[in-house]
């Protein structure tokens, strides 16, 4: 009888803690790591660059947080922010959906571009944001990235692009597809100018972004365990009618198959990028 009572108390105690955590998660103070299932205090997670302190899982980052992690404090100046979502197909409900999303996320589009210093090295950066329609590439994303590349050409600066994308912006149809050609053409010009382009792949980078600028860096870095591919895993599974092996299309898989240069943990990303930029400064051949 007594034991039963103790058990009951323990159980309610446990339940109470559980409820408390659940309540805190509801108000957004805690998150659960879907890799190791650990419940993490959000503030602690953010202090740790949004990397799980328990298992090292790299959580997805908003463009704002990413820029804060990479740019020297107070040096980021945004460019191309005047470029807004377009609706070339007059697709029913699209612009309305975008307006609601902008209000909710306080993000203007799926990429934010600017000029900043990275450990004192001046560079153009473009940072995609998965919170905005899964980082899909429509005309605004393509246009902003092209402007970023052209700004790098005009100002003779290196460019760093952080990629995250679910693929094409379906609501923009063929115009979305054409952004692949537009951005890749701009990269071709950048190459002719002898300027450095570092592409950083983060979880997930797929579809049209993978099949354009993401795969065209002079140096391609990736965060650990990021999913990277052209076709999404579900599409492949439907095609071949079998399950994909564990780790297929992971950053580690791509490194092994020769498609990326280096996997870099988030804590080392800024210093690695700065180092690469510095390594490209010595070899410049001056005109004349």
């Amino acid at each position, binding site marked *: 009888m007594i034991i039963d009572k103790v058990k009951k108390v323990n159980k309610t105690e446990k339940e109470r803690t559980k409820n408390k955590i659940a309540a805190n998660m509801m108000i957004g103070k805690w998150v659960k790591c879907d890799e190791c299932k650990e419940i993490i205090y959000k503030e602690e997670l953010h202090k740790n660059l949004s990397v799980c302190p328990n298992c090292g899982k790299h959580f997805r980052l908003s463009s704002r947080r990413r820029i804060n992690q990479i740019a020297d404090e107070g040096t980021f100046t945004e460019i191309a922010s005047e470029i807004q979502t377009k609706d*070339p*197909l007059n*697709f*029913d409900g699209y612009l309305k959906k975008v307006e609601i999303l902008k209000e909710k996320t306080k993000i203007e589009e799926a990429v934010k571009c600017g000029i900043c210093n990275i450990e004192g090295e001046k560079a153009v950066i473009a940072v995609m944001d998965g919170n905005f329609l899964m980082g899909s590439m429509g*005309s605004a994303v393509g246009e902003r990235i*092209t402007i970023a590349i052209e700004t790098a050409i005009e100002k003779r600066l290196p460019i760093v692009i952080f990629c995250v994308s679910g693929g*094409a912006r*379906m*609501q*923009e*149809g*063929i*115009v*979305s*597809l*054409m*952004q*692949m*050609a*537009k951005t*890749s*053409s*701009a*990269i*071709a*010009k950048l*190459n*002719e100018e002898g300027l450095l382009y570092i592409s950083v792949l983060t979880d997930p980078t797929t*579809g*049209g972004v*993978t*099949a*354009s*600028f*993401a*795969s*065209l860096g002079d140096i391609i870095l990736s965060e650990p365990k990021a999913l*990277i*591919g*052209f*076709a999404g895993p579900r*599409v*492949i599974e439907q*095609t*071949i009618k079998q399950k*994909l092996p564990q780790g*297929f*299309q992971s950053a580690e898989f791509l490194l092994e*198959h*020769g*498609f990326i240069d280096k996997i870099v943990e988030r804590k080392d990303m800024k210093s690695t990028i700065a180092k690469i930029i510095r390594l490209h400064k010595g070899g410049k051949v001056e005109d004349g």
Partner: protein
Amino acid sequence: MAKLTAWDRVQLARQLERPKSLDYIQKIFEDFMELHGDRNFADDKSIVGGIATIDNIPVTVIGEQKGKKIKENMERNFGMPNPEGYRKALRLMKQAEKFKRPIITFIDTPGAYPGMGAEERGQGEAIAKNLMEMARLKVPIICIVIGEGSSGGALAIAVGDRIVMLENAIYSILSPEGFASILYKDSTKAKEAAENMKATAQDLKSLEVIDYIIEEPEGGAQEDVNQVALNIRKYILKNIKELQKLSTEQLLNERYEKFRKM
């Protein structure tokens, strides 16, 4: 001619009997010689390519190739290229640049193949590389969508100075079925998707994505393949001559601006 719906055209574009790249290539050019392989992994039969002449002008010709019968379709992987197909195309295009030959491409694919091997060998990288290289090739490039031009798999050989479509071809971000399953969460709404996704030649002309629509006979290209081949031939000749008048710098600037404004 009765007005066709977008869905009618999707059906026409996919018809098994519809003329494929090789049908046109053999009729348009005098002496096509097919060349094979990407010099790295394999020869992808879903893309054919080689050299030929048209009115005594040497050209490089590349086309995505579907089959008309099930056996040929299996061999051709239903016109869905693997990375080595795109790399073969790029090899031949670089060769064209070396020998200053204009390039003509024929687009007809349901998309790049979404298989395991394709991913392992870098499908995304292969397509991206083509887009980047085609943007700067120092020879005229004319791209013709003859059937189904779907997704990055089509675009991978469709960056050029002239982008044109046959009257009943479609060119889109993905198939109407895929579009419906993503945006309407229901792949059976493909017909509705086809109307809304603006993928017909007329749609793309008004969106200023393509330059010109090449006429087909009533009922579709299969009704008179000789006539359609002749129409294509006329277009190619006229435009090669126009493009060859431009300096390399002009050619590349205009190509850049063409995609820049999209």
